[in-house]
């Protein structure tokens, strides 16, 4: 699994598509890729990972368990997520929880990722 992070609108998806010569059809946008599809394909991209976490929490799910168990079965995934923790503590309890959980999930994914890149202005810095 590879992890690509960065602020909003930094060109993360375009960077990944061109680096790995992948088409838009390989992109799962804000949803977890399907098991059967992952078995058939070499590499899939999961974009807007942070939004998936947000929806998952809203629906009472546990994003930590879901993503880790998916990765236990399939490691051929490039996960793209916004960094959302670089701001003032939100007033709304849900927003605080969302922000903190995204941060901690990304720390865990970074630990198991074979590569972590941070994209700023379309330029990637390899940090792991």
């Amino acid at each position, binding site marked *: 699994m590879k*992890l690509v*992070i960065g*602020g*909003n609108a930094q060109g993360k998806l375009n960077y990944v598509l061109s680096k790995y010569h992948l088409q838009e059809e390989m992109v799962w946008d804000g949803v977890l890729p399907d098991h059967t599809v992952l078995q058939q394909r070499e590499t899939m991209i999961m974009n807007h990972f942070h939004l998936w976490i947000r929806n998952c929490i809203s629906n009472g799910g546990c994003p930590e368990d879901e993503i880790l168990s998916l990765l236990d079965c399939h490691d051929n995934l490039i996960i793209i997520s916004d*960094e*959302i*923790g*670089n*701001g*003032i*503590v939100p007033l709304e*309890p849900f927003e*605080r929880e969302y*922000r*903190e*959980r*995204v*941060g*901690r999930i*990304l*720390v865990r*994914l*970074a*630990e198991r990722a074979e590569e*972590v890149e*941070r994209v700023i202005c379309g330029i990637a*810095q390899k*940090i*792991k």
Partner: protein
Amino acid sequence: MMILVIGGSGSGKSSYAEGLAVSLAESGNIKKYYLATMQVCDAEGRQKVERHRKLRSGKGFFTIEQPTEIHHSLEKMEQGERVVLLECISNLTANEMFSEGETKPEMQVVENVIRGIESLKRQVTHFIVVSNNVFEDGVIYDATTREYIHAIGKINQRLAALADQVVEVVVGIPVVI
């Protein structure tokens, strides 16, 4: 040596800073102090403190609660070599700025915090300061919050100038800047 550790919410900056303090204290019989700045006023705050205590437990830190006037923590330390971890600048700044029902001016807050940090830096062996990146959420806040963000920005710049090393923690990964 002074090291500034900066990161966003949930970035893993605390865990990294603790590891740093432990490794700096390893060479010799150096005492480790943790300066806690958070003023707990609700269940969520208590939970946060509890999480941090768990993270620190077994690492041999002596905790000093010092929500304001950070240099007074020196009076509570033993003499000799010591490694001090201060966490964190955003709480300290908020406590200095919004206490006793009034808002203190930005410049006064910046000077107070920096003076305290300078005297700690002079009197301890190794000093690790944890600060926050609160600058990139794109939200336009009210005047008071803007002043608070500005104060932290100025403090971070002064701390970076005082520090021997500045490390940004990104998804748990230290990036030296």
